């Protein structure tokens, strides 16, 4: 079995994973932005 990584590395890993969760916000904004653009295009086509 491999040895565990050093304590400091693991602490940094936890902080990094917490930061990675922030990506959920930009991913949500991108997804909802695309939907909004499609809805606007549809409305323009309807006119």
């Amino acid at each position, binding site marked *: *079995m*491999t040895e*565990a*990584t050093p304590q400091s590395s693991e602490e940094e890993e936890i902080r990094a*994973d917490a930061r990675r969760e922030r990506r959920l916000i930009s*991913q*949500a904004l991108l*997804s909802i932005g695309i*939907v909004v653009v499609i809805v606007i295009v549809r409305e323009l*086509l309807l006119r």
Partner: protein
Amino acid sequence: MPVLNGVETAVVIVLLLCVLVGTLPVINTGLQFLVLPLHAFRNHYGKAVPYHPTVAVLIPAWNEGLVLGQAIDRLTQLEYPADRLRIFVIDDASTDDTPAVVAAKAAAYPGRVVHLRREQGGQGKAHTLNHGLDIVLADDWADAVLIMDADVIFARDSLRKMSRHLADPKVGAVTAYIAEGSRDRNYLTRFIAIEYVIGQLSARRTQNVGGAIACLAGGAQLHSRANLEAIGGRIPTGTLAEDTMTTFEGQLAGRRMVFEPHAVVLAEEPRTIDSLWKQRLRWARGNVQLTSIYRHLWFRPSTEHNLGSFAFGLAWFTILLLPAFMILAASALLVLLLLHSDIAEFVFRFMWIAAACIYLFSMLYAVQLDGRIGRQSWREALMFPGLGALLLMAIALFPWLFEAGLSDLGLALTDETRWGWAVVFYLWGPISMLGIWLARTVEPLPGGRFFAGLLLYVCGYGSLLCAITVDSYIKEWRHADAAWIKTEKIGRVDS
């Protein structure tokens, strides 16, 4: 819009409410993905610290000779202190080479791998696990117990990413992200991969936010000793969904459950509709059983746990009752069509435009949550609702294109044909479930796999899950045999 008298108005309102109830699953999906970004702030990382408890790994195994060796090898390669991990294989009276595989691994990793043999097997996973738990908990060595399946492959950093949450004594158990990991994927495993992204990376993060977890994945659940002892030191045996019941019992005992999205565990998933059906039927029947067992829990908020919250109940019942809701909405739309076709058409378009927006938002979001799966399975993400539902969304969004297309084909809409199309459109949900039943029927026939796949792409993966849920209603209602049916695994996951 027509002018309605009092009775007509009341009838229309009731029918509209039925349609609204029918759209609850779509609304729930939208809410799930809208709440998801909150996990950036409401998560457990603030209380996680490096923590390496002594872990007893329990692997229930019945004829797992093809996959077990690789799983054990991978466990020995985990980035985790070697002296803090022991592997217990609970051999459920296997008749293949499982005992020989375990013996070879015990010799290769002396003191690390233990073979526990049950001479009377076949009672199911919970009984097998309890055999191991009796032995592991009788000794005070283990601070925590990792329950896993014999075929799963843990990423090297996965266990320590799970155990860091157990540093918080309020946390009773942690589960990982089970990702579809077959090296030779087919259309069905790609659909399952997307389903797991939606059902885990999205739904379980949302459950983290809400403070109530529906199910710790049976393939990777790390329990603290205290949590297991609080639920009696046993895995519940009275249901087909023992992992979900264990999850509920831990939370009812006052402990928090955590989903760790960055701990990745690869699993081999079914490659045929029939084998997927058998696996999911067991899960669905288990959920029907649990709905009854915990009937005093639903929609009753408690200060001790969040299982009784409105949001959790809504998510639970929209999945459990999805086919019933679908049929209710279709029936209400049909009656509306008979009474007031213009109102029916308006409601139909509104419903499918909303569904299109939520589908697009959720799938665009889902393919970003796991880049590997997003790249491999984007076609299945696109086709998740099925070609039929996608056409309905397109028709609702761009009705003039549909009418122009029919005219070009010499099938211009008349009052009669408009009515006929409406009936087909409104009944698409139930029709798509029948299509899935047909897919399962033709699958074993010569050339049937192609047509089964074609039907799945047309009817949608959601309809497949709905059809299985309907089957679970029928089987539970008939008290059909609930014997544990093992999902065949032959080692398609690369370590």
